[in-house]
């Protein structure tokens, strides 16, 4: 066990964890922040996506100890127009992937704003192309939704982008 201090949603949280504990388990089991979901614990589904200094990461693949000093934002700390847009566009059904989809979308919009290309980007030189449906779908493909709410999620992101 080791004591670490994480900055979560703007406040400092001190906790005792075993070295193998993931950021995801630290959030869910040690801090009671269960809004971040565990779907596969292997980095394949994206349900555990959180923001670390504004960048989206799979928290199941991140060791809690390595994230001391980083600013972690989870769904509980988010206040973003995407959240209401998801409801309006019905970009969710069971709700289990939703936190990850929303955190991922927030990170994705920032990446796009900074000019990061994706596999769907036609012209790498062109700056700040509008986010097409195809771009959104490509950039969000790390977040699985088994209920199949993909169309609604894309609409919600488009509405806010």
């Amino acid at each position: 066990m080791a004591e670490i201090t994480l900055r979560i949603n703007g406040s400092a949280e001190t906790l005792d964890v075993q070295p193998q504990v993931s950021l995801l388990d630290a959030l869910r089991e040690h801090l009671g922040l269960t809004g971040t979901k565990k779907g596969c614990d292997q980095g394949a589904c994206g349900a555990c996506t959180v923001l670390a200094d504004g960048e989206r990461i799979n928290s199941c693949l991140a060791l809690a100890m390595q994230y001391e000093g980083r600013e972690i934002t989870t769904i509980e700390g988010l206040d973003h127009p995407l959240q209401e847009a998801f409801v309006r566009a019905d970009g969710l059904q069971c709700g289990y992937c939703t936190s990850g989809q929303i955190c991922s979308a927030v990170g994705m919009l920032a990446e796009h704003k900074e000019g990061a290309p994706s596999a769907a980007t036609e012209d790498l030189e062109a700056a700040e192309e509008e986010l097409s449906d195809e771009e959104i779908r490509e950039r969000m493909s790390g977040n699985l939704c088994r209920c199949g709410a993909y169309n609604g999620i894309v609409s919600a992101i488009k509405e806010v982008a």
Partner: protein
Amino acid sequence: MTVVGAPIDRVDGKAKTTGAARFAAEYALPGLAHAALVYANIARGRITALDTTAARAVPGVLAVLTHQNSPTVKPAPKVSMLNLSTLVSGTQVNYLQTDEVHFDGQPIAVVVAETSASAKEAASLIRTEYAAMESTVDFAAAEPDAKVQPNNPLMRGEEKKGDAEKALSEADVTVDLRFTTPPHAHNALEPHSTTAVWEGDHLTVYDATQSIDWVRSHLAVRFAVPTGNVRVLAPFVGGGFGGKGSVWAGTLLAALAARATGRPVRLMLTREGVYRTVGGRTASTQRVALGADRDGKLRALIHASVARTGRVGGMPEQITSQSRHLYDAEHILVRQSLVELDLLPNTFMRAPGESIGTFAVEAAIDELAAELGMDPIALRMRNEPAVNPMDGKKFAHRMLREAYTLGAEKFGWHERTPEPGSMRDGRWLVGMGVASAYHPANRFAANVTVRLSADGTVLVRCGFQEMGMGGATAQAQIAADALGVPFEAVRVEYGDSELPMSPGAGGSMQTASIANSLLEACEKVKHSVQALAKRTGGEGYEDILRRANVPHIEAAVGSDTRFGRIAGQARFMTNFLLEQRRWVKAAAGVQFCEVRVDRDTGEIRVSRWLGVFDIGTVINHKMASSQLRGGIVMGLGMALSEETLIDPRTGRIMNPSLAEYHVPVHADIPPIDVSFLDDPDPTMPLGLLGAGELGITGVAAAVANAIHHATGNRVRELPITLDKVL
């Protein structure tokens, strides 16, 4: 007032977009311990040695439970049609009560520890030796030994009209085809999870389940306590698709671990654990043979399937279900056969039967159309029956003609040039395909209470779970209209076995079942209000209740006493059988697909999708569209990428992860255009037909037919991966 039909936002949307909605593994109980499972890695045999020394030495480990030290658990009850909750056991294996291994993946030990990390570490240190016994695990090798499925009250294993084989041999034009479909896994994003706590002889479980009431009955039997001592809570469930319809090992072992340690225990299966311990969809082989006159009139329809169950459980899939209702063939033969394997039992997965059955029959119809040189829609319309083809029963509702007409127009079917490979867009070969969707409609018994308060608010109580279908929203819409109050005035309490009994989510029956009782309860409330008004006068609920000095009026439908439940179930079975004798009821529709296939690499992209569906009255257009889209998305996975790989030598699942079992991702899914005919079914409450399963039916066939149109290749084995197209 018409709230029914309105595209209202789901009432739990905010809870789900802020992280507030709590799922089964998210209840922080004082003193909570964590459990992890150890799985057998042989298909059949006995455990000869189980060394837990290293596991017990891991700091924080509270207990290592095995068959050598587990508290006693009663065996699963025998299946009885008089008590439908007996159907809920995923397997007949009494975990940790025996040294016998019945399938690869069977849990053989449970570690309980202070943290999930310790439990996981300790579980990895347990060493087991086995005496393996001979096992049968290879579906393909066992297929020739398949036996015709025994009849059950819901469906006969074999049905025939006339002599289909003879008619086939005499028909002008025939196709006689073999299709195969692989096993599939539900992969609900929330892994099966249970938090269990005992207080004396009282058990509370927060469980990821689609069957709150049956889980409760089952756990009571297994732990030998009265049913009333068990409470099951499942307000939010992270997807199920049938995979959370039964009680699987995790639920039982969490309760067992809590009992053994005296601590509240949380058991969240790993993704691998879900594959190892929760059944999926059976593999199938299917023969579809069709014989027709030159003008397309069907003379013979044969649909024969082989599927599998497990030696220790499983359900026979109704693979030929739709083939009994879709086409007006003069001679029909349907037959479902089964093999029993030493594998984790199969279970229902979204539209069990029809999802893979429609693939075969709807692809075969397309092949027959090509043989005849007919348009595939024209061939279907040529054989659209006026009454149920098998026995002449009436259809309660049948709007396939309307669905095809509207769908063809909206999709632009007339732009399709019939010749395969004739439509191109640069390097892409473009194809258009179509198929029918079909799913039977039924109802279960449901208990509901409705309380109208003097402040004008309404409380509906029913113990269903919220799994994404939007039950609380839909039932609030129904109650609002039935009582003539605003939608916002209605609150629905759900997700708890302490509430009036709800049927589980299965067979697309839940919404209609609850609606039926809800409407009745609302009528009772209205009668009571009218009676009050006669006595004391007044206008409008609030005024009447206030004048009468009555704080609220409550009405109940169904009784949660033991006798009441038995009576309710008997009423349901009688009603079910009577209705089955009178009507053929189903939701139906049509799926249109456009694919693009890369002429060099064989890469397949679905570029357009349109569905027109007849689900009777639509309660909420927004949520119903989502549910149908969800079915289509899962169907696209089935068509193009999904396959549980089972090692034919060992019976071990080889791809138990979301990295190796490929469900559709954002990039795979085009905009899906969903329309409804929105015409009430006269035999169902409010005219509504279930919408949960219809969407997946017909999808794989529409894709296969479109791929044929694009490339000229017929692929009859799912999934249609690019190597099969090249």
